[in-house]
């Protein structure tokens, strides 16, 4: 069983070096009937980056996540992860390859404990089979013990150590979001996709989350982030892509994006001091 809680070994998880391209989205489109949720978007994510996708509501950010992780197939284009085309792969296989995600509206396993939730992440990393389990063979026993220890470690890293036996449904929102992250980390991902991880949080919780993401980056994990809070995005991102109506309208470092007039317009519409709307 792979032993890293988050794939860290300083220079970006094993195979590649920090700075290599880990994920390529090539001209990806996703249509729902006549609705072009995503239309020909391309970008590259480098290993060890905190890469943010932003845009107004309905821009297609969550759809992008769903396509990249294999929940929806792409209507056009390719997603290449560590050199491998993900076309046609079911979502669990994508996760097995090293891509984990969290959901904007938290999807936890409510009637299981926090620890059990986290241990689900280890499912694809353990090899014990049905017979190993039934006969309680050493392999099953040891792997389970190891998975349990690693899960507890992970929970402590995200600050949920005290809550390990608590029923997940009884956690408040901030902790639920953290549990989602812990659970995703349990799959030993090389890239972590976080869908609005600070949604609904107060400033101090947001700061905690930002600190967590920063620590993950230091450990060598690549983070792909969808976010709404500008403060969070500008504070933590290495690179930003801006979507609007399913298309990429800008890309660059935080400072560049902040100053980009097209981006401002997409978010705020045309301001009063600009030309009046004529069309």
């Amino acid at each position, binding site marked *: 069983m792979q032993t890293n809680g988050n794939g860290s070994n300083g220079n970006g998880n094993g195979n590649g070096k920090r700075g290599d391209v880990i994920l390529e989205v090539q001209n990806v489109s996703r249509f729902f009937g006549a609705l072009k949720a995503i239309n020909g978007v391309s970008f590259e994510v480098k290993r060890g980056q905190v890469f943010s996708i932003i845009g107004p509501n309905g821009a297609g950010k*969550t759809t992008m996540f*769903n396509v990249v*992780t294999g*929940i929806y197939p792409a209507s056009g284009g390719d997603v290449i992860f560590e050199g491998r085309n993900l076309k046609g792969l*079911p*979502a*669990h296989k994508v*996760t*097995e390859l090293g891509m*984990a*995600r969290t*959901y904007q*509206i938290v*999807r*936890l*396993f*409510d*009637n*299981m*404990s926090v620890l*059990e*939730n986290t*241990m*689900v*992440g*280890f*499912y*694809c*990393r*353990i090899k*014990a089979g*049905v017979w190993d*389990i*039934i006969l*309680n063979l050493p392999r*099953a026993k040891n*792997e*389970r013990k190891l*998975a349990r220890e690693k899960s507890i470690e992970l929970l402590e890293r995200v600050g949920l150590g005290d*809550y390990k*036996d*608590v*029923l997940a*449904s*009884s*956690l*408040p929102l901030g902790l639920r979001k953290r549990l989602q992250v812990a*659970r*995703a980390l*349990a*799959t030993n991902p090389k890239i972590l996709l976080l869908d609005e991880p600070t949604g609904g949080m107060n400033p101090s919780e947001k700061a905690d989350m930002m600190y967590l993401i920063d620590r993950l980056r230091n450990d060598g994990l690549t983070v792909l982030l969808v976010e709404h809070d500008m403060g969070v995005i500008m504070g933590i991102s290495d690179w930003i892509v801006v979507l609007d109506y399913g298309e990429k309208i800008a890309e660059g470092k935080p400072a560049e994006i902040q100053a980009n007039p097209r981006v401002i317009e997409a978010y705020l519409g045309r301001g009063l001091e600009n030309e009046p709307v004529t069309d």
Partner: protein
Amino acid sequence: MKTPGIRAKLQQGIDRLNAHPVGRYVIPAVAVLIAALVPTFIQSNYWIRVLDSALIYTMMALGLNVMLGYTGLLNLGYAAYFAIGAYMWAILGSPQYDIHWNFWVVFFLAGLAAGVAAYLLAIPGLGLKGDYLALVTIGFGESIRILANNMSLTNSAMGITQIDPMSFGPLKANTVQDYYYVLLAIIVIMMIVFKRMENSRIGNAWMAIREDEMAAESMGVDTRNLKLLSCFIAAIPAGMAGVMFAATQTYVSPVSFTFNESIMIVAMVIVGGRANVFGVVLGGMLLMVLPEPLRGSFFDSARILIYGLLLVLMMIFRPQGFWPRQYRGVKKLNGKKVGETIEAEPAAAGGVQS
């Protein structure tokens, strides 16, 4: 500061016992011992026969629990697998076709056959939502019954009689007590096996699927194959129970495998406490043994009515069953005291759209 009451002290004592590596086995061992001693204290053959029947159905409740309790897949045609097992032994171990195979060979074969049938039915059924799946299982259950009722292979409605009893080589079982001990042993083995599965990565993944299938899939759980596995394993005890049933009754006919039987087994799991082998066994034994004293009285004809009432009341007031999966030592936030145990509720409807 309030001193904890008797109940809390008892709970703490039990928790400490269960936490000890050897102590964990004390309570179950005592329970098994008591169960094994039952025939020496209860001399009535009638009651042992009742217990035999109860144990056979409890086998099935344990099996259905895998599918319904752990994985959350509702099966309303579970009696079909029971029928498959029963008819296998009726055909392969009786004068009907003058075939007399070895009992235990058929026992395991029937389990396998039932499992395969469930697996094949699940393949198309997987994409369906909960209530559609339930309907397909009803259809399958009914179809098996109709087939049994009409095929000459199964001697249609007349059934097959003079079925061989259970045997160990040359030794044949000929008392209800013989069956009791064997059935008890089977139940204990099954409980151990299922408990191990429950606490393993597979059980964990099953429960994740039950809670939120899409999230489970995102976490690397191969939901499709795990659901198939769940259906396969769930049906095996039913096939085996069918063989036992045929042997103890020495007669099988389609009337034993109706929709009402399927519902009853579902009730055992739900009322007893799902995803908890102990609760399920409790449910099974209760639902089979409790109606016995009422047999012959007015209440007997009202049995199904009471059943229905029980189901409705349980669903409204205690949907998690009498003895659901416990989380020992769980602290619940916002108000409850440390150490207070809470029980897992069945999942709420809805779930979020992605």
